[in-house]
């Protein structure tokens, strides 16, 4: 409750999305795997504090786009500007240490480990003591662990998963696993959070819960969020701006209303012959 304040208080973002500063910009990015052109000359930006959705039919290149952003794929052309620094390609460890965290389309947790331990792995990059010092677990490394554990506990409190603290995540229902994965991403204290289909395979109630957490993360922690999602209801309700991809190309970019009324988006989703 009150203890959240330290973790949760960040600079308020009063301004409207379009007036905010650009956190990440992708310019003219193209990516191909051999002959397959997954992304063709796509440009868009993500502004500080917004919820940005990336949508599109299956195989449109959405996940590839996220992988480019966090440095997992290296585009052949184009640049990525993150926090004012322009790069030809991002590298995963740079992305992680500079405040980009992500969750995956299919849950990628350590199934045999408890919820607490899984979230704790998100703190790895923030740990300063060496393996040896941690093994001895005395003095500074003990203090450090206590500090990290506190952050983890705040996340547990934030995501309301106190009751599964010590449960091995493999035993948890899917919806809760997704929540733990979000928790691990939050443990890195990200500035930009990439969510790859956070609601896939969830029932209505789980979707509602997850939507609330996504909004809370954005609102309370001030985290910028880019998400891929298939549930259009969720996308239209949650996001500030939406970029639409189809066959690796950007076909629309704007507010949910604009995108909803865009003819090429409607065509792409209804499969109109071109």
């Amino acid at each position, binding site marked *: 409750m009150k203890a959240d304040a330290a973790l949760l208080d960040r600079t308020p973002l009063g301004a409207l999305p379009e007036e905010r500063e650009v956190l990440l910009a992708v310019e003219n990015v193209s990516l191909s795997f051999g002959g397959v052109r997954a992304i063709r000359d796509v440009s868009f930006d993500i502004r500080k504090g917004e919820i940005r959705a990336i949508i599109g039919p299956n195989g449109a290149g959405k996940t590839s786009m996220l992988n480019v952003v966090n440095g997992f794929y290296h585009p052949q052309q184009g640049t990525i500007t993150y926090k004012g620094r322009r790069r030809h390609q991002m590298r995963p460890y740079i992305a992680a240490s500079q405040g980009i965290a992500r969750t995956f389309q299919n849950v990628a947790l350590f199934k045999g480990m408890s919820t607490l331990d899984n979230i704790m792995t998100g703190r790895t990059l923030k740990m300063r003591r060496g393996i040896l010092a941690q093994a001895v677990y005395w003095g500074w490394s003990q203090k450090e662990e206590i500090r990290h554990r506190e952050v983890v*506990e705040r996340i547990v409190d934030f995501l309301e998963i*106190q009751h599964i603290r010590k449960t091995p995540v493999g035993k948890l229902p899917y919806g809760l696993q997704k929540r733990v994965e979000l928790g691990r991403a939050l443990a890195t204290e990200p500035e930009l959070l990439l969510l790859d289909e956070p609601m896939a395979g969830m029932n209505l109630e789980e979707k509602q819960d997850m939507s609330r957490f996504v909004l809370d993360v954005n609102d309370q922690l001030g985290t910028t969020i880019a998400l891929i999602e298939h549930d259009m209801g969720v996308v239209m309700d949650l996001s500030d701006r939406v970029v639409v991809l189809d066959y690796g190309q950007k076909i629309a970019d704007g507010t949910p209303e604009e995108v909803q009324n865009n003819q090429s988006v409607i065509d792409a989703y209804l499969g109109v012959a071109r």
Partner: protein
Amino acid sequence: MSGTIPSRAPSSELDTIPKLLLRNASRLAARPAYREKDLGIWQTWTWAQVRDEIRELAIGLYILGLKRGETVAIIGDNRPRLYWTFAAAQSIGAIPVPVYQDAVAAEMAYVLSHAEIALAVVENQEQVDKVLSLADQIPTLRRIVYEDPRGLKKYDHTRLHSFEEVQSLGRQELKTNPATDDWWHEEIAQGSGSDISVMLYTSGTTGQPKGVVLSHENLIRTAVNANAFDKLSEKEEIIAYLPMAWVGDHIFSYGQAFAAGFCVACPESLETAMEDRREIGPTFFFGPPRRFEAGLTDIVVRMQDASRLKRWMFDTFMRIARRSGEQILEGKPVPLSDRLLYWIGDKLVYAPLRNRLGLSRLKIGYTAGEAIGPEIFRFYRSLGINLKQLYGQTEATVYITMQPDGEIFADTVGPPAPDVDIRIADNGEVLFRGPGVFQHYHKNEAATAATKNADGWVHTGDAGFFDSRGHLVIIDRAKDVGHLNDGALLAPKYLENKLKFFPEVKEAVVFGDGRDFATMFINIDLVSVGNWAERNNVMYGSYQELAGHPEVYAMIERRVDEINAQLAQEPKMASSQIRRFLVLPKELDADDGELTRTQKVRRGFIADRYAPLIRALYDGSKECHIRTEVTFEDGRKGMIEADVRIVDMPTHQPMATALKEAAE
């Protein structure tokens, strides 16, 4: 209720809860009063700290404009700060009104406007949203205070305040104006035992909920009596997990806690209550029967998956526990060999089980609310857990009867609680009188007059009788109790519950009001009977076939006979032995309107629907053909037809007559 009476002399007796707070803060200053888990670690407040927290809050609330006699809604899960709000409001003469936290906004609207709430103290954003959505229906509501600021940053804060903010208002005032502390103590001294302490709305199965008004005297006298009855001291620990709006929680975790000065621990969340209970190890605990049932089921299921050695140990030592555990708990003589075996069993089985249940340190456990299965009740007691039953209601400030140590029976709720008189009306209804009798229903004189008569006797609405040991047995709601043609009492639910304790029986429906004898429909439990059939090579193709199977009939017949034998032991009940029964070919289902959504039998509807079967039960036929509609799970409807066999049961001789005949 309206304002102060300036001329009233301040009373120095411990007759209000805030006065008890001051006593605890001076006498038990360093003892733990509240615990709450924050970020996974238990945080503790001592009584002295709690007094300071409550003082700041009370002064803060006063600065926000809360006046003597006004009402404060308290909405949320069990949280120390919400408990403090009770005492803070009471200290300045305001009246706390806890509201069920899971009520939807529309349900809340009635209570909040009926109680004319001036200020609401709520737990979190969810509750703030509900109260805000009702704001225009509650003209009296001026301010809302919330405990957890999460998600509320962007809300309009003109009438909205954080708990911290209210307390810091009080803190500031205390700092700048030292006389404030004296003022607060004077405010407390102004209170007296006859003041309204709290208003609890009963859920009310019919019509609108009623606001039960209780005085400080009601609360304190009942709490002091109950603490003395069970020898509860400031050393107890309790875990508060039942709704704060329920009278039980208000007495156990608030009234009795303040009276004895013991410690109240609030679980982290509802889901962690079980885990938190193991960590806290309460010494005093209340749980509804279904909680104890769930605990037992959990153990049985886990044992089935355990290794052979463990299963053997469990079975062997549970046999010993069943044989002598209860006697040992009650200090009755037991053969030395059993005592020794029980001691070994305690080390190997019982103590680990108690630990698993979080009841290792338990001194007194209570259950109430509905009938508890005798098997379940005895299981816990044989493990050395002092589980007891009580009977109570909001109008009595809980306690009407309670079981004293050494006089525990699964089928009674015990003799009258200390200072409580009980009388059985001619129609079988239980009436009581005592220190806990409520003042009145808020703004509802008609209901007050109908429930409480001029001499202070209160109608419980329940029917019951005293057995030969002087213990009260509750049999049914008074309005559901009927009579056989010979004038004998017929309590359908009492009979049905007895049968439903057998795992094979899912539902039972008793008939007989205005008839010569009692009869019964039985619904078998598909899971349990199906299992039994599998183990005993009984073949069946459908529910209907299983229900009509001769071996199933034979099994049910044995069960009914057992019940009849039990009924024969009770003079009042001997006439309502089941003479004829049948097993229904179809499962009673809420989709068909036969059960309510909360799985209660709709007797009238069933009687209409199965009228031919009832006729057959009373015209002596051996079989009856029935054709009835069923609704399948996907909503389609179909018909089922069956020939239902009817079984005649021999009756047992009533005990009293048997004795007389033996004497002759």
